[in-house]
């Protein structure tokens, strides 16, 4: 069980969290180690939260938002995207591999994108 990497997934309420719900409705299966934290928007996730999660022992942190251009709040996901460069620099400075952080865009009707994203992240981290 310890081999399962611990993944924190910040999901926006409107798209990625809904897609994760739908993955359940469709009984898709994905790694049991992912922990979803519901946020209202991907733009709500402060860079500090990503760093803190890794410091607390998360193996990877994902931010999943609506598709670019389809944000429920106009352009919150663009704001998240704009901040991601800063997050990566911050992680570099702190000595974390950049593979430990990723951004994903999906609609509420794309549970498969969600499942693939978390599955791939788990595999990527396992290889690290």
């Amino acid at each position, binding site marked *: *069980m310890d081999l399962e990497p*611990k993944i*924190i997934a910040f999901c926006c*309420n409107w798209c990625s*969290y*809904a897609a*994760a*719900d*739908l*993955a*359940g*409705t*469709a*009984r*898709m*299966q*994905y790694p*049991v*180690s992912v*922990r*979803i*934290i*519901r*946020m*209202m*928007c991907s*733009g*709500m*996730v*402060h*860079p*500090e*939260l990503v760093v*803190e*999660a890794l410091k*607390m*022992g*998360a193996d990877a942190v994902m931010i999943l938002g609506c598709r670019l251009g*389809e944000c*429920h*709040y*106009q*352009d*919150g996901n663009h*704001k*998240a995207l704009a*901040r991601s460069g800063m997050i990566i620099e911050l992680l570099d400075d702190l000595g974390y591999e950049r593979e430990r952080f990723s951004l994903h865009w999906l609609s509420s009707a794309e549970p498969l994108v969600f499942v693939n994203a978390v599955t791939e992240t788990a595999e990527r981290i396992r290889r690290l």
Partner: protein
Amino acid sequence: MTDGKKVGSVMIVGGGVAGIQAALDLADSGFYVYLVEKAGAIGGTMVQLDKTFPTNDCSMCIIAPKLVECGRHLNIHLLTLCEVTGIIGVAGDFAVTLRQSPRYVDMNKCIACGVCTDNCPKKIDNDYNAGIGKRRAIYLRYPQAVPLKYQIDPAACIRLQKPGACGFCEKVCDAGAINFTDVEKIHRINVGAVILAPGFEVFDPRPSEMWGYGSNVNIITSLQLERYLSTSGPTEGHLKRPLDGKPVRKMAFLQCVGSRDENLCGNGYCSSVCCMSAIKEAVLAKEHVPGLQTSIFYMDMRTHGKGFDQYLEQARREAGVRFVRCRMGGVETDEESGDLRLRYVNENGRQIEDFFDLVVLAVGMQTPKQVLDLARVADIRLTADNFAATSDFAPVKTSREGIFTCGAIAGPKDIPQSVVEGSAAAAAVAELLAPARGEMTILPTFSEERDISGEEVRIGIFICHCGTNIAGVVDVKDLAEYSVTLPDVVHVERKLFSCSQDSQESIIQLIGEHRLNRIVIAACTPRTHEPLFRETLKVAGLNECLLEMANIRNQNSWVHGNNPVGATNKAKDLVRMAVAKVTFGEASHATTMPVVQKGLVIGGGVAGMTAALNLAQQGFTVHLVERTDTLGGNALNLKYTWSGEHVRTQVAKLIDRVICNERIIIHKEWTVTEVTGFVGNFHSTLTSKNGETKVIEYGAGIVAIGGQAAVPSEYNYGSITGVVTSVQFDKLHEFKEKHVKLAKRFVFIQCVGSREEGHMYCSKVCCTHAVQSAITLKKENPDRNVYILYRDMRTYAQRESLYKEARKLGIIFINYEMHGKPRVTGRGAEIEVEVWDHVLHQPLLIVADMVILAVAIRPREDAEKIGKLYKVPVDGHGFFHEAHAKLRPVDFSTEGMFVAGLAHYPKPVEESVAQALAASARAATILAKPEVQLDTIKAIVDEEFCDGCALCIDVCPYHAITLLEQTAVAGEAPKKLVRINVAQCKGCGICQGTCPKRGIYVAGFTIKQVLAQLQAALAG
């Protein structure tokens, strides 16, 4: 209309999804509702379904919150086990007599513990499970039943049949709720209007042994399959052969059983929903049983609703469902194996035989006998197909004034259309009873909210089994034992269904008993159920924000079904995270804002005018904005509705009534160019064609901007004069243009621009229109040759009678497929149409004088612009996207905005009218109240940390943040601060994600809370 008094209450007969919607809309807009149900619990047919198309949502999961809302609504009085025996009086003032059968269980005493059922020795067929498996004589219709009270089936009960015998239930019932001496009661209730929503019954193939049903248990109905597929069904979702429990590898669906068939069942009409339901069942069955082969045997694939053709294509291409257009010859049983041999004639005329493990009969809908009796009691007219007769321009009004209908009583229809009609009936009632609004309703007395600021944290955790959905995977006992050990947790309890009414009541009680001040519900997703539990907290006197849900179903038991240990551990983590977060939860109060009790309708077509007129008749001022100089919209191009009503006469009447209504302010040649505000308080800038502007205010808006006909790019349209669109043809025909008048040979080509790549949707009206035109042409001159080249003839529901008439008149129907589209070439004055003939297996050449193209309906090009203004989405085709395809068919996800008519999806007049009325009823639920409550999820400034750097101001998408300078102490430099305008703030938290000082946060998602969640997540 009488001038007499109007009574401000309404009786709704039938507690299915249509009746429930009507009840909620009326009760929310100032009317008292009696919801009458013949069964022991409301819910109707929808609660028997496993999943719903085209979203594959769990049927029970989406309807359960509505059931509970009905059950607990202050202004809805549920009357179960009742039937209507008389309706006297006039519109506005009826006296209805009800006969209520005895329940034999005292509703006030029954606590729904179920001990009675466990001890009842009598087993009978379970009608909720469509006859599969058994239930007891004392029972609940289904576990989440509303009201959640047991009932005794007197025909099955040993004691009631034989006095002195049995009586076990009475002995074991600690609550003393059993009452064998219960008697029938007669109620006489005074109401202003009656809505009939009694629903349908599925066709029973047993008496006629249709396709061998009854002779072999491996032949089941589609409703039975729903129960087999349901995890709460008799086999807990395991699909096995009824005969021998063997796995099912090959499954066949036979369509049109009890529909489109006058010989065997007498139901000539199409039941309209069975094609989609079969496709859905085939797709889901394949998910249940890997490697399962499914074949659907059909005449025409009628997937005419929104998203249906895409669903069909996915089923065909991705899920691998096989579709066979054929004539079924017979179904025979192989005595030895119990397998079923199907004989059929395929499209190429070949006789085929094939074996299947299981055969599913797609049984149609029909009006049950007791509904025919009800129609007699109500004294309303029926159609030849035994459905309530209504006008296409007043689709929820019966022949008797003051009595309305919704749902399947007025023709076969699916859930969204039933919900639309439920709301539409509410709108029609509200129009009639407008003067009596608010006269009979009870005002809520909210429990006083407990001030918990001085209390220590006391957390209560409720763990939902969700039947077996959660408990079948997660070790809930272990989870509960673990949960008790978490800090500040004082009470943990497991619930079979935490969303059921009795669970809600028990939670309310326990909050008081244990002085709980933080609640964690470990169940399904907050996206569907948080509002329900928030209400529960409110009733218990606890602030609604002191709630956190742990999603241990959708994001746990369902996705880790193959790993119960992992899922149990994850559930513990999720509960721990929720506890950590809720510990830092704070009470927060919704701001109320006054409502501008005026409406806005964009679009002056039939839908827009209908909505505007209804709102005005309900007593609200309405702004009607029309971009052109004419009211009427696309309907001005139409001649007759499918049932033969003259469209222009009706539209002219409608225009007159709209123009004459002093509450409707018409803005012709104006468009909406700017929108600010929010539910209850919208401001819009209108711009005229000359560039002038004006600002209007309104509390709710309806988008009814219509659609437009596509311009064909094929079949040599534009280069051959005789090739015309259906709209052009109608005009030419009406004006007796000589080309049409003299023509002898007509070819209609269907699906021009519909149901193909890029436009994978059905335009819904064209089949009926072509058939109607063909009939007229043939009736004018029987010597004419009329051909209709089609892909699937979609004369759905009662329109089927037109198709039948057309065939009788000798109109020739030729099927074509996408890969063999007809070819149209001009040859002098004649037109040659070449199409593959499936019967003769060779190309067929038709020489025609005129070719009529059934062009698709497209969205308007300004739809996207209006979508952006209101932040409401359009779908991939450009039609507006409703909040939920099934249960919120006219709502937008933006609160206070609604959609109706072609802007939503192509549809015939009566469906546009129903949708317009529905949108108006939904808008009225906002406009009828003087104030609206805003969401509690808002940004809050922490003045201690905010230093007024203003970074948040730049990123706020709603311009809800402003900079302030305050001088706190005289002499010191002014302190800079930001301030939030709560009405504008939508709670996205982009400010929080940006703030370098932790000076701003969103209630319920504070950094402190999220950090606590992270810590809890990573502590395990």
